[in-house]
């Protein structure tokens, strides 16, 4: 059995009251714009027969201007609540006769079907219920058949509940201020276990974790851990928080801790026997965090060449093992000559004759020039605050080594790199 609470012209301010009334009777409730349908099966032991249940609901919603309908299926309950005032209880099996006088508009047919039925003179539930089902199916299709069954009060369907919004958060106010990382990690471990346990029960994972620390001086300190993959492993999150807080300490005693995980669907990975070796995402993330703590932020990642005319322009992006293509092999008889770049370029004193380098003196690079090639003039970004303009030379020294020199205005020489 189902009960419908219908409030004509339901205002936003009345929605919480409607929800409270409905939730008081059953957790299985479907909400719409102006009504709520409650599954009242099982309430007979508390309230008695359907009439008593209906009266209890009507008493609860008194003052909201609501109408209540009780019937054997949700459609009939909604139609009864919308069609009749006050409390309407339809005994099982009598839906057709109880709803017969209701206008067809309560079924909300599509415009085209409404026009067709009106042209046939169909105005009420009884008129539609009197039509043969086969004829309705031939002329109006399955939608028409369903409409007829609703007019008969015989259409069954399950309730469509709202998706519960789960919030994966945990927090704790500390009895004493925490200044050191180790005791803070103890607290974070407990909160992470709660959050990851909640994620696990909902078959979800998280790829973002927000940490909020309330400090003794009243400030709030926030850190966000973003992962390229979703996980619900508390240890992984704890380790990442540990490395992050070690690199970015709050610098004040902590009085409260709050953690929030952003839930996402867990990743689905299909392994294979012949897939090339790749770093495990969790291990990789922890390793990168530890390396970053060693070498500093922005010094570990994948190089990406920038599409610009500036020679050697690149940026470091976050490394995440991409999906690899089918394995191939590159073989060559003559490998490409590589250059090692000095960062920053080595200042050099170059003895030049008619602009051609004859002798180079720099840190670790000294000698007479045996062979030179150049200059190659390059310049760009003239309209920007950082234009460049210099000449490049390839030189081989008599003492050994092949280097790339750079001369930039007014007459500064640098050793840019060595061919190795």
């Amino acid at each position, binding site marked *: 059995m189902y009960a419908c609470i219908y409030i004509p012209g339901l205002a936003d301010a009345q929605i919480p009251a409607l929800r409270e009334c409905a939730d008081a009777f059953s957790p299985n409730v479907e909400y719409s714009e102006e009504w709520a349908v409650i599954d009242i099966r099982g309430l007979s032991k508390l309230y008695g027969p359907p009439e008593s249940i209906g009266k209890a609901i009507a008493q609860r919603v008194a003052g909201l201007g609501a109408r209540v309908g009780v019937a054997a299926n949700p459609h009939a309950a909604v139609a009864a609540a919308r069609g009749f005032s006050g409390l309407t209880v339809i005994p099982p099996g009598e839906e057709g006769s109880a709803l017969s006088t209701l206008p067809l508009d309560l079924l909300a047919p599509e415009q085209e079907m409404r026009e067709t039925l009106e042209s046939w003179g169909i105005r009420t539930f009884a008129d539609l219920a009197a039509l043969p089902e086969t004829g309705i199916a031939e002329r109006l299709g399955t939608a028409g058949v369903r409409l007829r069954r609703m007019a008969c009060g015989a259409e069954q369907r399950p309730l469509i509940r709202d998706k519960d919004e789960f919030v994966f958060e945990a927090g704790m106010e500390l009895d004493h201020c925490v200044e050191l990382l180790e005791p803070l990690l103890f607290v974070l471990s407990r909160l992470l276990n709660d959050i990851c346990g909640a994620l696990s029960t909902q078959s979800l994972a998280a790829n973002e974790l927000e940490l909020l620390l309330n400090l003794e001086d009243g400030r709030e300190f926030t850190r966000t851990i973003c992962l390229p993959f979703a996980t619900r492993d508390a240890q992984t999150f704890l380790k990442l928080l540990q490395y992050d807080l070690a690199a970015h300490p709050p610098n004040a005693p902590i009085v409260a801790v709050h953690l929030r995980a952003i839930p996402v669907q867990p990743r689905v990975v299909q392994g294979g026997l012949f897939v090339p070796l790749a770093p495990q995402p969790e291990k990789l993330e922890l390793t990168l965090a530890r390396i970053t703590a060693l070498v500093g932020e922005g010094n*570990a990642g994948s190089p990406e060449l920038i599409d610009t005319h500036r020679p050697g322009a690149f940026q470091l992006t976050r490394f995440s093992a991409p999906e*690899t293509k089918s*394995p191939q092999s590159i073989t*060559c008889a003559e490998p*490409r*000559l590589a250059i*090692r770049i000095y960062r920053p370029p080595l200042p050099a004193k170059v003895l030049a004759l008619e602009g051609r380098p004859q002798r180079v003196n720099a840190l670790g690079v000294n000698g007479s020039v045996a062979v030179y090639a150049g200059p190659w003039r390059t310049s760009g970004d003239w309209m920007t605050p950082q234009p460049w303009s210099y000449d490049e030379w390839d030189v081989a020294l008599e003492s050994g080594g*092949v280097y790339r020199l750079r001369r930039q205005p007014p007459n500064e020489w640098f050793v840019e790199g060595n061919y190795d």
Partner: protein
Amino acid sequence: MDRSALAAHLRTKVQLQQQLDYVYAPTGILGFDSQTGGVPRGAITEICGPASSGKTTFLHALMANLCAKGEFCAVVDATDSFDPVSAATAGTDLRQLLWVRCSRVEEAIRSADLLVHSGGWGLIVLDLSDVKPEMMRKVPVSYWYRFKRAVENSPATFLVLGLEPYAKNCAAMSLELQPGKAVWSGAHRDFQLLRGMDLDVIPRRPVRSHVRVHLHSRAC
């Protein structure tokens, strides 16, 4: 057979057996792979030589071949000298490359240690090419044994580049690169172009291989 001869004979036999147990990863350089088979997996390979001897060229060819096979490479750059443009030109897929830019030798060694222990890499490179040998001599030998232990049960190749051999007995393969002649084109002294360099690769370990591999690298 006296004792010293017997010890030398047994030592060679053990090394031979160890070499037979390794799986080799081709470098993609035909001349080198045909003579040696490539570089051993699950072991340390050391490449040493002075500036402009071809160490980086060798490295980029190996990286390009392994990336083409779908493996991931990590370069721990002790002196921030890596050139991604050269690597991309050689054929390396930079998305499969992790570059760790260090400013001190200690950072480089610890980063390499973390990578070796994390697993999943096809190639881990510890680039000490521009580090002065006197600084490297302060690194305890036990570090190299630690690297050897960590890599031996994995399919990764651990490559060390340096001016001198540092890993020594811990390396399963040790290559010495001698600077070859640079090749220039152009008739006139003032209109020349660097075309490439000759490379001389001498395998020092395994002991059984006394072959010199001559390579010619091509400039861009």
